[in-house]
């Protein structure tokens, strides 16, 4: 028997949210199917508002959103029963030990007492707070509090976890640990929406991103395809009299080439052509390659492009070529 199709993680259907009479989210539309979806945008773009709307804290003023196939307007309890949420700000009950706090949150999510207690211990060990689990949360460092928030978000075994700026205020080692935990969570089948303004965090975990700008969808992109395209995306700096012949040779190899200012060249390598071939061609044509670098990360390109354009759009593997065109237009 064929397996039932998995519902999209998130489907936005003209979602509009007004707060205090002011539109904060304006006609968001699109479908997100990734396992880990990065929610990106500058401060004030509407990331946290979108998460709060998915949780039912803010009612949509128009349109709707479907989380795991369920409508936030009409099926909120069913959505909440499948969610885990880690808010951006400090969130705990003062005077409570971590294990009691996580157990309570698991019980409130519907687990029976015995199972909730077991899962609370396990979740705290999993995030690395096993030895400190009987301490009161207010005695924890900022990094430990972030981990407790993660533990309470996953202790009840949710299908989807919403993480709002999970690496906020963490030192590099704690940040790495948090990202590793998120990746492990995703690897075990839990779907994640990761909201962050840190591109590197999103880049390291996500396979799809939605970028918001001023309350609108700036772009939705498949990061796996972007990464694949971007691995072939290089920037060269050349010296020598035969640069034109070198560029012709590159085109002969099947590369897409864009000549920029100051003898810089952007190149998209076709399948089967490696960097070694570029060095060979340069030697053959008497051209000196002063610098050869991969371009910025695909996500950074994508984000900057989305911020420049700010229009609704869906991006795919053609982003690199589009970036070249953009760069040419801008005379970079």
């Amino acid at each position: 028997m064929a397996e039932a199709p998995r519902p999209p993680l998130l489907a936005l259907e003209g979602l509009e949210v007004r707060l205090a009479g002011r539109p904060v989210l304006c006609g968001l539309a699109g479908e997100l199917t990734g396992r880990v979806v990065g929610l990106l945008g500058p401060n004030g773009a509407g990331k946290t508002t979108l998460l709060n709307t998915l949780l039912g804290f803010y009612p949509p003023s128009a349109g709707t959103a479907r989380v795991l196939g369920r409508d936030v307007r009409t099926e909120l309890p069913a959505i909440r029963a499948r969610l885990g949420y880690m808010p951006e700000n400090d969130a705990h009950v003062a005077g409570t030990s971590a294990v009691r706090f996580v157990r309570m949150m698991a019980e409130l999510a519907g687990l029976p007492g015995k199972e909730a207690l077991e899962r609370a211990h396990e979740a705290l060990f999993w995030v690395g707070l096993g030895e400190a689990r009987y301490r009161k949360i207010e005695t924890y460092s900022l990094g430990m509090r972030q981990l407790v928030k993660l533990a309470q978000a996953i202790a009840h075994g949710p299908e989807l976890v919403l993480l709002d700026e999970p690496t906020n205020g963490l030192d590099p080692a704690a940040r790495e640990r948090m990202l590793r935990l998120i990746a492990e969570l995703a690897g075990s089948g839990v779907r994640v929406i990761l909201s962050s303004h840190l591109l590197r965090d999103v880049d390291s975990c996500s396979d799809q991103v939605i970028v918001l700008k001023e309350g609108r969808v700036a772009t939705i992109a498949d990061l796996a395809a972007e990464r694949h395209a971007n691995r072939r995306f290089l920037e060269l700096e050349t010296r020598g009299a035969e640069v034109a012949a070198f560029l012709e040779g590159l085109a002969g190899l099947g590369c897409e080439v864009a000549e920029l200012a100051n003898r810089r060249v952007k190149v998209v390598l076709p399948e089967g052509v490696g960097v070694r071939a570029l060095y060979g061609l340069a030697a053959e044509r008497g051209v000196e390659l002063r610098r050869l670098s991969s371009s910025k990360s695909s996500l950074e390109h994508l984000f900057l492009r989305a911020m420049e354009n700010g229009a609704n759009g869906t991006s795919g593997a053609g982003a690199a070529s589009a970036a070249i065109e953009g760069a040419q237009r801008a005379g970079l």
Partner: protein
Amino acid sequence: MPVFDRRYRGYAGPRRAERAAVWTLARFALRHLFDSKLTLVLAVAVGLVPLGFGTFVYLANNLDVLQSAGIQVDLSLVDNGTFFAFLSVQTALAFLFAAFVGPALVGPDFAHGALPLYLSRPISRGGYVAGKLLALLLPLSLATWVPGLALVGLQAALAPGWLGGHARVPLTLFFGSWIWILMVSLVVLAISAWIRWRPVATGAVFGFFLIGEAFGLAINQFLDTRWGSILALDDSVETIWQSLMGGATIFGRPVVQEPLPVAACAAMLTLVTAAALAAFRAKVKGAEVSR
């Protein structure tokens, strides 16, 4: 994810119905309350008074016990006034308990942003309010109408036929207690939600009741009226108790000397209870809206 394994695993076991979350919330709130020594001390103090009244009721019905011990006393009969006094003392103690202990029920949630965590689970704002209210009403019930009805039961057992002539007493103990503890609980929770620092919240609870009374007295004084007394919530509730009981005297004097109309007192208490509920619920939000 067993603790020795250190790998994440999902959960596919049983889950409870969503309505169970209200009781779960109340249970954890009660446990949190009784972690405090102050709560234990107040609970013991509140529990001692019914024991004293119970002893009185027993001795009043068994004077021979005292006489056999060589003690000659004339204990007045157990009547409406006895239970009115019990209700007055226990509801006053219940108020103290709620004022000192109640802010610990919601203050820690509001002070450290825990509300989004509660409300991201299958529990509504109303469910949160109900859970916290239940956590306060349970000990207050154990302080007021539960021992009150137990005392009535004791008296009825020791004096067969007594209940037939005092049928309003248990009704007054039950409904009279509920009117007071419901209002006090909601006022305490609402103030604690708006004022997150516990000592200040406790002070504000006292202030709410005392300032109302003082303001009422001032109105009576300056406007030469008795309607200012409607702001004295304890007087209003005593008026209702007296009406429910069909009159009660202590040492031969009516409990409330110049009562206001019962309907006016009931309207005032309803208004305060509803306003407190609305004020509490208004603060129970998953996310604030910045204006």
